[in-house]
């Protein structure tokens, strides 16, 4: 090798970080379309969640001031579906670690953060797709936006931002837990626990007092509250600010943890 080759290597080529991230996004979107379980989880599962909860719970739950349960449910069940989907990210990252993909990625010049951001980009595309399907199915069975088109767009954007936080948390989980099956459970448990102890499916006021205290500070309640305000109408400034604060906080913790874990990760 010549001295100039080595000198060139010391100067990072421009634009490669973005191109590298885009290559990873393209890879994961292809997998999403080609791996049967991933495709099913991104299509049937969200549809089932909307239909099952609407028809199973819809008769039992009466929410003051909301005419149809599906109007109450949909903003919440969006978070549930995105959370379930995000656990697939933990599984996939652990799998990449086990199969040596991450060794290969780490031996290449694209920085760790760009590789992970590429996956987060694919997750974001999946979440937009899932959100669109769920709103479509919801609309078919009576869901309506009551606060206008701008709020509807803001709802989709907030759902995507929530998905981003879940995505980075699950990348970190997958790299930290390492085993794919364990990583999947580690991704699902917090979603199940936090969703069912929040306002996602039922109003907090129907819960026992001790649980209400937790449910009110539960980040899922906060985020679902903001989504609901955007769908149903009413004051949005404060719920939105609280939800964004949670999302920013989670990202601030999850991104450095995921990047640090990636840099250390090597298949055993």
């Amino acid at each position, binding site marked *: 090798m010549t001295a100039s080759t080595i000198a060139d290597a010391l100067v990072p080529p421009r634009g490669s970080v973005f191109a590298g991230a885009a290559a990873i996004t393209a890879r994961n979107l292809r*997998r999403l379309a080609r791996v049967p379980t991933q495709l099913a989880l991104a299509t049937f599962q969200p549809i089932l969640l909307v239909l099952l909860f609407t028809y199973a719970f819809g008769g039992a739950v009466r929410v003051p001031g909301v005419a149809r349960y599906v109007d109450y449910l949909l903003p919440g069940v969006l978070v549930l579906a995105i959370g379930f989907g995000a656990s697939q990210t933990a599984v996939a990252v652990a799998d990449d670690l086990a199969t040596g993909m991450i*060794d290969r990625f780490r031996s*290449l010049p694209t920085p760790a953060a760009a590789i992970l951001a590429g996956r987060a980009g694919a997750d974001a595309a999946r979440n937009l797709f899932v959100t669109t399907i769920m709103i479509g199915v919801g609309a078919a069975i009576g869901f309506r936006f009551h606060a206008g088109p701008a709020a509807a767009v803001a709802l989709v954007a907030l759902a995507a931002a929530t998905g981003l936080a879940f995505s980075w948390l699950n990348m970190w989980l997958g790299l930290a837990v390492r085993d794919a099956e364990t990583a999947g459970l580690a991704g699902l448990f917090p979603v199940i626990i936090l969703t069912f102890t929040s306002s996602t499916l039922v109003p907090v006021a129907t819960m026992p007092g001790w649980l209400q205290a937790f449910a009110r500070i539960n980040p899922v309640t906060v985020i679902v509250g903001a989504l609901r305000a955007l769908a149903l109408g009413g004051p949005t400034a404060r719920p939105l600010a609280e939800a964004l604060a949670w999302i920013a906080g989670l990202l601030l913790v999850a991104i450095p943890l995921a990047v640090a874990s990636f840099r250390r990760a090597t298949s055993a």
Partner: protein
Amino acid sequence: MTEQPAIVVDRLSKRFGAIRALDDASFEQRPGTVLGLLGPNGAGKTTMVRVLATLLRPDGGRARVAGLDVVAQAAAVRRLIGLSGQYVAVDQYLTGRENLLMTGRLYGMSHSDAISRAGELLDRFGLADVADRQVRVYSGGTRRRLDVAASLVARPPVVFLDEPTTGLDPHGRIALWELLAELTAGGTSLLLTTQYLEEAERLADAVVVIDDGQVIASGAPGALRARAGGDRLEVQAAPGNDPRGLAQVLVGLGTGSPAIDARTGRVTLPVSDGTAVLADLAQRLAGSGMRVAELAVRRPSLEDVFLALTGRPRVQPASDADRADPPGDASTFDSVLGRTR
């Protein structure tokens, strides 16, 4: 101007808990050469490759690849290396072409460069027919070829191949050897790990033998073989003939004394030149009236090298039995000279 060594390993150490994966290991590789890092399972070969490929930080010592420090200048090192790890790391749900394209983009190549380079490698590695099929339908050998191709996408001056022929059938192994020989003719420095002396001899300009994380020998492959005491003559007595009697017949024929394998009754004798002793052997056998079931001259294996270098046989861990299936298997590489009735 003298060229930089491709690799300089200077007293590298790496521990995993109580295990010393690398223990004060040092060696150098001249640019444009093939270095065979030879050792049994668990010797530290993969750890060495991972340190050099910037995946693991060493606990002690230093290593330079293309003149750059693998810790302090890791990002720059990654622009100059290609890695094909011990296990095939290509995405099963992407096509061969898509895998190479992605790798090119991750090296910072432009889209059009990555496309033309992917096409070039697919042709060269005999993958053009399956280029647009998903990797999950590929055979093991085809996947391995794609994995090696992926390590070459950016034409890196230094390439690491960690046991590249593992899991290949003899045909696939020889095809890959030919590809690698072609590649290194272009001036790429290649570090190749292997468990097989035969593979190192076939490809490497120089060999470094490691065991328990320590470099125990280095030099040209032929010199290493000479240190192992040249060829091995193996004679199996026919049923009803005492192996000890047979061993007696062989005394003085080789460079050492004959050894009898207690389990098989096979008598092994180190000889400087296997074929040269055959006439003498035939005469002795005829004179003794001993009957022989099988007779073979084989080149020394890694086992023999270890025996010669360390004075103790190297035992393969039982869990690695499936991977210990050697390409130097008698049926493939030994000159089996025939049987007498």
